[in-house]
């Protein structure tokens, strides 16, 4: 591999990492409208269950935890903005850790795999969601990256003791 190719690959990974860290920061600080703005108009946000092959499962054929298209992502943000979203009011403390980022380019589409741990703390309990993200990113005409989809594959046996994915993973 030539030096230029290596440099390009590293630069691309750094750009993707910047975006993933920005996403984590926005979610941790409950800036959900800004989080939504990172996504394209036809984006999706999926969380498959833990007893299927989460990387390949089809949400039209298997029961998932979360199958949000762009409309429902928006509605999720709207809902979480209300005090009547009882599970998240008062808001829980959230911290997203993202690591092990690997990036593959396929024309304007970039696929990123990364590991995550998300802590949600509230009412004397602290639960951690562990898994890996599959991000689909699209390079815009102006060179910026937008997220066209995120699948959160939980590397857990079951959602226990967690009862809810009421924060955005």
């Amino acid at each position, binding site marked *: 591999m030539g030096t230029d190719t290596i440099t390009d690959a590293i630069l691309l990974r750094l750009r993707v990492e910047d975006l993933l860290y920005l996403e984590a920061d926005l979610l941790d600080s409950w800036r959900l409208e800004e989080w939504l703005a990172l996504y394209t108009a036809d984006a999706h946000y999926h969380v498959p269950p833990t007893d299927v092959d989460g990387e390949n499962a089809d949400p039209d054929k298997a029961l*998932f935890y979360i199958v949000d298209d762009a409309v429902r992502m928006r509605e999720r943000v709207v809902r979480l903005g209300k005090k009547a979203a009882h599970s998240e009011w008062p808001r829980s403390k959230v911290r997203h850790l993202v690591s092990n980022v690997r990036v593959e380019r396929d024309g304007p589409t970039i696929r990123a795999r990364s590991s995550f741990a998300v802590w949600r703390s509230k009412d004397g309990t602290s639960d951690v969601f562990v898994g890996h993200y599959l991000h689909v990113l699209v390079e815009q005409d102006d060179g910026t990256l937008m997220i066209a989809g995120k699948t959160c594959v939980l590397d857990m046996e079951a959602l226990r003791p967690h009862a*809810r994915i009421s924060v955005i993973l």
Partner: protein
Amino acid sequence: MQQAPQIIDDPAGARFLVPRTAFTSRDVFDREYAAIFDRCWLYLGHASELPEPGSFLTRTVARRPVLFNRDKDGEFRALLNVCPHRGAIVCRERRGTSPAFMCMYHGWTFGSDGHLMTLPGSSGYPAGFKRDPQKQMVPVPRMERFGDFFFISFARDGEDLATYLADAGDVLDLVAQHSASGMQIVGGTQEYAIRGNWKLLAENSFDGYHAACTHSTYLDYLKNANGALGATPLAGVGRDLGKGHAMVEYSAPWGRPIASWVPLWGEQGKTEIAAINAALEARVGTERANRIAHLNRNMVIFPNLVVNDIMAITIRTFFPTAPDYVEVNAWALAPHEESDWLRKYRLYNFTEFLGPGGFATPDDVEAIEKCQIGYAAAGEARYNDISKGMGRADGASFDDEEQMRAYWREWDRRLAMAEA
């Protein structure tokens, strides 16, 4: 032994009170296992989960490891998944297909009917040892099916399943009749836990009173989502189905993939739904078809099976491991013959409302967990009020609490019976 806390059931005074220690006491929890979980018929699984001879899955039912499988002849079986030798779990996989099961400890190997097939080092045992009834895997004392729903009981004697189910059987039939070719469990299980007493989940599952407040954001969402909401109002009844089983049955504004169309599903969807509705009417008659298609049912089969036939169908069962902790498993049930298009909407509907990532269940969990925290004061703030609609002369509304009273009376009866 101290006296178990008892409910106060006073129809003349329209009072129905449940002591909060019923949710917190370790003594009550132990009694519940002895008087309820070790005695009642408990849901095990659905026939569609074991599609062929040799299919198996492992589940925990009332704290016991259970192997639910089909033997080589295709017969459904429920075995305690425990080696007769030293007691290790025999099958350690969640599901699959296998003609035999080998214990990893010493290699004892069992056929799909639980009989001991292979005994390593058999020269160390007397002749006939391998055929000794005590050296075979132990079947669950009783298993019966109602349609494609399999139930087990750890009590060797007692009433048969159909008698136990009482009028809940007909409601299970209503679910089965959604399909001409049979219903199936859709792949993917929602497996979670709640930090609350298991009876709080039973109550919540058919509580028609809480929706307007607890789920206001879900109802807002339906209004915002263009065309997700029909014109039908929330209205209906609460029904006691006998033997502690009960339900609420009501009309609702959301779409039902069986035959209640909403504008979001488009004109093509309207045509498909109309065809399903016509076939349903031809199969079961207009009156029953209308009930199946247009009415929602949230049913609790005592003690711990929830069948909610709402914007999708969920089968949910749960077992407590402590007074303040319950493990939940939930599945989606759908007609075999359903088109890809409608299956997609069904699952979209399901995840919109139900489950840990939905727009409603997390707030149910919030309510349950907050109740449990509140019950720390059960010594002073002592009773839950479950009296809504008790004095009503014209029958229980879906948002009364008659269905919960039916459940609690059975709970009280079973605990008192065990005491006597």
